[in-house]
């Protein structure tokens, strides 16, 4: 019998070590996960058994009192700058250049690169988001209408890998062998604009879909809590005036049309 494992609990992003899990199947750390098992085998299996590795994800009988244990929560694991976890150095250079054009630096606020958007995307793709964990990834796969949503059999991590390779090929052909990161800024913007409008065609993948995916993830990196590696020093929050994870505005609700004076805070505290 084929054993299939899925995680039923809301496991929390960042709970897993970055990079520990990139195939979309099995559970890292589980002695019963079989990294060699292929999706095709999963799809044809008929007898399914559920196995869990996370201690919080076991069936439980609750009676008499609330089930509470100290420190049983799942806080996010902080991302630290450092070498790429998912991207290759070339992919990393391309992503840094891309996010720095989507959100360019200006005298007041850093751009996407210095805000950490590329590090954010790298760590997201190395984790549960990149592996499409928890999503319904069973076939048959068919192209639907836009209203039916994404039907790709590929995980977000695989979609980035495919699109970045195709973008590299496009740029080297169009710009005398240069990758995206090495072409002038105004040419970078032309490429991005072409992707957005569907005018730049990428080989084997939709440039427009990649653009939307990248833009969404870049904005996430610019505005998410800094604990995930982007929004470094809360630059995104400071730019717009969002005070972040503040807890209590009761004294401020009825102070109308006044600028809130306190600086932002994040889950891990203030920037130093």
């Amino acid at each position, binding site marked *: 019998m084929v054993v299939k494992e899925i995680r039923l609990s809301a496991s929390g992003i960042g709970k897993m070590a970055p990079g520990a899990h990139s195939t979309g199947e099995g559970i890292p750390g589980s002695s019963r996960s079989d990294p060699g098992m292929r999706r095709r085998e999963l799809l044809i299996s008929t007898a399914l058994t559920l196995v869990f590795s996370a201690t919080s994800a076991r069936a439980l009988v*609750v009676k008499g009192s609330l089930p509470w244990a100290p420190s049983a929560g799942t806080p996010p694991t902080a991302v630290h700058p450092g070498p790429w976890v998912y991207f290759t150095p070339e992919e990393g250079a391309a992503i840094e250049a891309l996010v720095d054009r*989507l959100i360019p630096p200006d005298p007041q606020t850093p751009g996407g690169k210095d805000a950490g958007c590329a590090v954010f995307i790298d760590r997201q793709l190395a984790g549960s988001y990149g592996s499409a964990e928890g999503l319904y990834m069973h076939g048959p796969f068919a192209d639907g209408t836009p209203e039916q949503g994404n039907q790709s059999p590929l995980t977000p991590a695989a979609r980035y890998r495919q699109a970045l390779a195709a973008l590299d090929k496009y740029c080297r052909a169009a710009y005398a062998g240069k990758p995206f990161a090495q072409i002038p800024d105004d040419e970078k913007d032309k490429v991005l604009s072409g992707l*957005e409008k569907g005018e730049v065609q990428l080989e084997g993948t939709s440039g427009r879909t990649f653009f939307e995916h990248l833009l969404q993830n870049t904005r996430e990196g610019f505005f998410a809590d800094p604990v995930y590696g982007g929004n470094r020093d809360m630059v995104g929050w400071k730019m717009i005036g969002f005070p972040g994870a503040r807890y209590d505005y009761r004294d401020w609700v009825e102070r109308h049309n006044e600028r809130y004076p306190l600086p932002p805070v994040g889950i891990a505290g203030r920037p130093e």
Partner: protein
Amino acid sequence: MTRKLPAADVVIVGLGWTGSILAHELTGAGLNVVAIERGPWRDTATDFPPAYAQDELRYRIRHDLFLRPEQLTMTFRNNANQTALPIRSWGSFMPPNGVGGGGVHWNAETWRFLPSDFELRTHLVRRYGEKFLPEDMTIQDWGITYDDLEPHYDKFEYLCGTSGKAGNIKGQIQAGGNPFEGARSREYPTPPQKQPYGPTLFAQAAQEMGYKPFPQPSGNLSQAYTNPLGVTIGPCTYCGFCEWFGCGNYSKASPQTTILPALIRRPNFEARTQCEVSKINLDKSGKRATGVTYVDTSGNEWEQPADLVLLCAFQLFNVHLLLHSGIGKPYDPRAGEGVIGRNYSYQVTSSVDAFFDDKIFNPFIASGSIGMCIDEFNGDNFDHGPHGFVGGGYMGAVQTNGRPIQTARTPQATPRWGAEWKKAVAKSYLSSYEAVTHGGCYSYRDVYLDLDPTYTDRFGRKLMRLTFDFHENELKMSTYLTDRLAEVVQKMGPRQLEKHPRRGHYDVTVYQTTHTCGGAIMGVEPKTSALNRYLQSWDVPNLFVMGATAFPQNPGYNPTDTVGALAYWAADAIVNRYLKSPGPLVQI
């Protein structure tokens, strides 16, 4: 091999709002109750403590508290000519998972439906004539009246400690409340929440135009409140992480903050979590439920026998279980016959974005259910004769959050990236405002739920298939409501205003609300409804089905107050009528 457990008096499928309410009422009547919940136990300290509850990426963008589509999803198509494909990642609505259900991550907007909403077809035909309704519209009466439900609305609101201002107490219109609402027996348990700048400006503008603005009724409390069960809820701190999030502050009404601490102490109650019910079992006659079969996390299959089965899962999954269990006749849209899957309905929201030069709104000072609203254009509160549609919704300035990934907005002409985008976001974040309409959605012959022929879940069961698109009536309604809203917003004095009425096809990737309704509706006769007026199955009298599953169509309000009231109404019928004489409570 399925192992059989000792019988219980009652088995409850799903421990959200309705499961918790029924468990509390029926254990109070002395019955042994077992609740079986698909997801994990959830509580503030473990799942959304204030230390990290305010995390937009984790909860809003990556859906941390919701059901995983891999565990169970459904397929979707706009119409029967298309091939339905699986919803691989949630978008339009967010099915809950775990103890507390949707009560964990709702906005806590706590509205009653209008008296005319419960007798909708009768009311509209009387006022406008049969021919005014679209030929394929399948709206119908609920089989109960607002007056039947009023004591139960009251009970749910006093459980929650709802913050608001009554507009009608025993027929007397109250200044500052909603003058269109049905008569209440008494004032709200707690006064309204405070209002930030945007809702205050909106209310001033609405007042000047002759409307009657009032504070939205809120399950995020304006002050501390101890409910009749002895459970205390804290005051809301307006932190702006409410809907999509669990409240880290014990100030949002949920099963966790209102019922479970009292319920769990009862010796005749037991919950089993991470256990998924796969089937409701019937005896040979097919007229009596014998209990349920469920699967635990080790893959063991168990049979839980019970005298009474209460289906209390989320709306969509109640219908899924009925279809899989062979209870009730599945709906056939060609013949227009059958009841399970019939009259699915949803929601039609829209918005108006306004950009100002001279105002600071501090959108992050928010709760999921503050705001100032008007109800002049809801239900049948206005004459639809000249407009060629029926239905409506409330509208207002409802300041739910300023979380920037989701809400950083720019005027439409702004590029979506680059230096100009950056400049526009920085300029607009504090000084722009979004007002909303919350429109209803009526039911149609070609909108329904059935089983998908291709895609299966992890048990190998067919997924449910959703066939739904907006109809002309609702799109006309949305245009009309958005135009009325824009007139009020214009009076707030923006530099620029943008209308976003609902248009085009229903898109399953675009979030509106999680107010999916119908599929096993209540009504007056078994030909056109799955449940009688007590939410009892016509076919299997020892089965009751809770939730918005029973709504014949969706009025222009948020559903939870009515879902809670119906649960108390059904509990009352079970305790005071059914237990005395088990059998059908309505004879046909």
